[in-house]
């Protein structure tokens, strides 16, 4: 694998990360916001595996296992919170919970 090929994989990972970030900032639906964080996780995973392959180091793929762990834990907790909030307010709009910080 040449360094140009690695640069290609890193650009794809950067694109996924950026699109995930824009989506997280723009969307107002709580569930879609959490989906966008999963998209950012995907970008990080691509970078890990590509660099691991470039250096013949399997730690990169091990990091993806941990990313999967964190994503699963985050999905379980975040979705439980979303269901809880939805029962109280009957909406998924993130702006509806704006007074939580008061």
């Amino acid at each position, binding site marked *: 694998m040449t360094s140009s090929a690695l640069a290609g994989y890193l650009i794809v990972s950067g694109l996924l990360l950026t699109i995930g970030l824009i989506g997280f*900032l723009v969307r107002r639906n709580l569930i879609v916001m959490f989906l966008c964080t999963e998209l950012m996780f995907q970008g990080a995973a691509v970078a890990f595996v590509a660099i691991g392959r470039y250096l013949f180091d399997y730690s990169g793929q091990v990091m*993806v*296992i941990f990313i999967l762990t964190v994503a699963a*834990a985050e999905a379980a907790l975040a979705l439980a919170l979303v269901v809880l909030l939805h029962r109280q307010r009957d909406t998924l709009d993130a702006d509806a919970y704006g007074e939580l910080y008061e």
Partner: protein
Amino acid sequence: MDLFLPYIACLTLVLALFVALRPTSLSLRIFMIVVGVSAAGWLIGLVTGSLSVFGDVSQGLFFFIFSVCAVAASLRMITHDRPVYSALYFVLVVLSTAGLFLLLEAEFMAFALIIVYAGAILITYMFVLMLANQSTDSNELDSRATYDRVPREPAAAVGVGFLLLCLITGTVIGGSSSMPTQGSEQSQWATLEHLPKQFQASVLELDSTFPWPPISSPQGNMIRHEGDESYIVSSEGKTLVLPDELLPRNTQQVGWSLVNEFPVSLELAGVILLMAMFGAAILARRAIEIGEREKQKILLGNETESEEGNSGDQS
């Protein structure tokens, strides 16, 4: 490499995304997504140079197809105004990423990604979406919620995204020439020495007369390397060249790396999953309690309402 053209590609991508995020007509949004995907493809092409840098033109072609699919699906995912379709487009992103992993010879991670993400996490998301997204007023023609159609601060978000994308692009292009030298394939053989039973069995299968064990080199490795060839030497001076089929498979390599280099992290991952399970269970339990308290409120009437309301606020 000149950074002007890549930055133009980044700018085109985020501007197209800005238009596609706003609540305009569907055809204009689709067109803008096509423009954004073309800009992303152009950017990838500018950075990689040619398809042959992947060693093989067909591999380069597959890389291009998978990465454009991933970017297109992710763009459609954040612009779609129905959350269920967003989740389905995210499945497409996961599948494209799994394709990229296959190209990177990470077979185990590719299928683990499909099973865990597309199989488990996305089902949880779909479940919650179906649970929470019930449209209450069905006589309305457009059942899509306003908060799904109208974005929040698209200009600011796209500006931040443009800065981040430019930073990543500049770093990748500037750093790709000075990246550390590629590791050697020889390091892959080292794992085999840590699997003595498999090592012995596969060597004896290759040559049943080989006197086990082989003697170590002065560096302490049983497997020696010369050029592209890897071989072992017995105490009688017999040499056996190891074919590439003897290399540990991807799953073995990842498993060895996991338990050898990150044993504490593995335990911590288990603790994180356990805590997430506890947290989800406790959150769900509290939700039922709130329901019961409200039920009691209705049953008991107005006398205890103020007290119950106070205790409810505190919890």
